[in-house]
């Protein structure tokens, strides 16, 4: 593994507190994920790809913005791996780059209707924007 890949792998492990080596590859995280059909890379693949250092495809994938942070994978993992925390760390590495916000204030008006709660807007901003 290149030193750059190694650095990124260690950074994600540190930020998330997730140890991908604990995974026993049962697939329960992806089986229970409500956004499974929307994702190019699924929760179990985030775990295995971070473990192998194959992180670049994850950083560039829209899957980062499909995770609902519903913690179903966190609570239902028999090994306590907590995949959603790893997805969150990869998403942060992606959006913390200058100009890499997934959503901007200018995108919001087109998404609104009369009923949408403020909670939806602030939540999306917190997930998609730095």
């Amino acid at each position: 593994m290149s030193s750059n890949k190694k650095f990124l792998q260690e950074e994600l492990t540190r930020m998330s507190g997730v140890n991908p080596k604990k995974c026993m590859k049962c697939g329960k995280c992806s089986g229970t994920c409500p956004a499974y059909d929307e994702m190019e890379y699924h929760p179990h693949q985030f775990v295995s790809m971070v473990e192998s250092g194959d992180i670049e495809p994850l950083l560039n994938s829209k899957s980062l913005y499909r995770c609902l942070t519903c913690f179903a994978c966190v609570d239902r993992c028999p090994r306590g791996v907590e995949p959603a925390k790893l997805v969150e760390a990869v998403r942060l590495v992606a959006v913390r780059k200058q100009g890499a916000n997934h959503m901007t204030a200018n995108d919001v008006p087109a998404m609104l209707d009369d009923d949408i709660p403020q909670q939806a807007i602030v939540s999306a901003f917190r997930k998609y924007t730095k």
Partner: protein
Amino acid sequence: MKVSYFPGCTLKNKAKDLDLYARRSAEVLGVTLEEIENWQCCGGVFTTSNDEVATKLSSVRALKEAAAKGQPLVSVCSACHNVIKQTNHAMQNDAFFASKVNNYMGQEPYAGETTVYHYLELLRDVVGYDQVKAKVVNPLAGKKIAAYYGCLLLRPNSTMQMDDPENPTIMEDLIKAMGAEPVVYARRNECCGGYVTMENPEFAKRKSLDIIENAKAAGAEVLVTACPLCRYNLQKAGTDMPVVYITELLAEALGVKEVTNEQ
């Protein structure tokens, strides 16, 4: 008794009902919700990464205000409760994170001393459902009510510690105390589609329809929730299933719905 209260952004706007019915019902039950001064939006979702500090400061400020008054901190919104409880847990258990927060904020260091309750926990654990039952003047007899928990109330269970995350009863027991019949169905703790509805409303609609159809098949006549975003997604699914806040039903059972509406 008096408790500190964090309403949150949505309860001052699109979910005023959730707030007003909660306050009025609490008064009937002998609890005053004292809104903390100068509260700031919780951000809607907790950022799990341990190097995120700024996004958690508004929750710490609210927790410190409650600590200064020696009161527990109560929220009704599932999202506010989730963010505040997870932040408090981090202040208790992550010394590195807590030191960064305390260094930034100055004044008295905070180490998670405040007790954090969701409104439902306040009713169950402090007031007691037997006391709620005793105050019911308008029993919701014969109504088949399905509780929708979603994700934020129960998970992550290691931190939230509200109930059994796969077989919760906190809302069903309240429904029983109000004289109605709770309907248990499989998808009551599956996600409605959450904030992804902003970018992809069709996806949220599919998720919400799965939940509503499941509840309907189990005999539900009405869905109840404590989360404005869950309610929005479930309503936007476009079915004839009514979706109401749990506090609205509580106000109805306690006989204060009309006077609250006149406010």
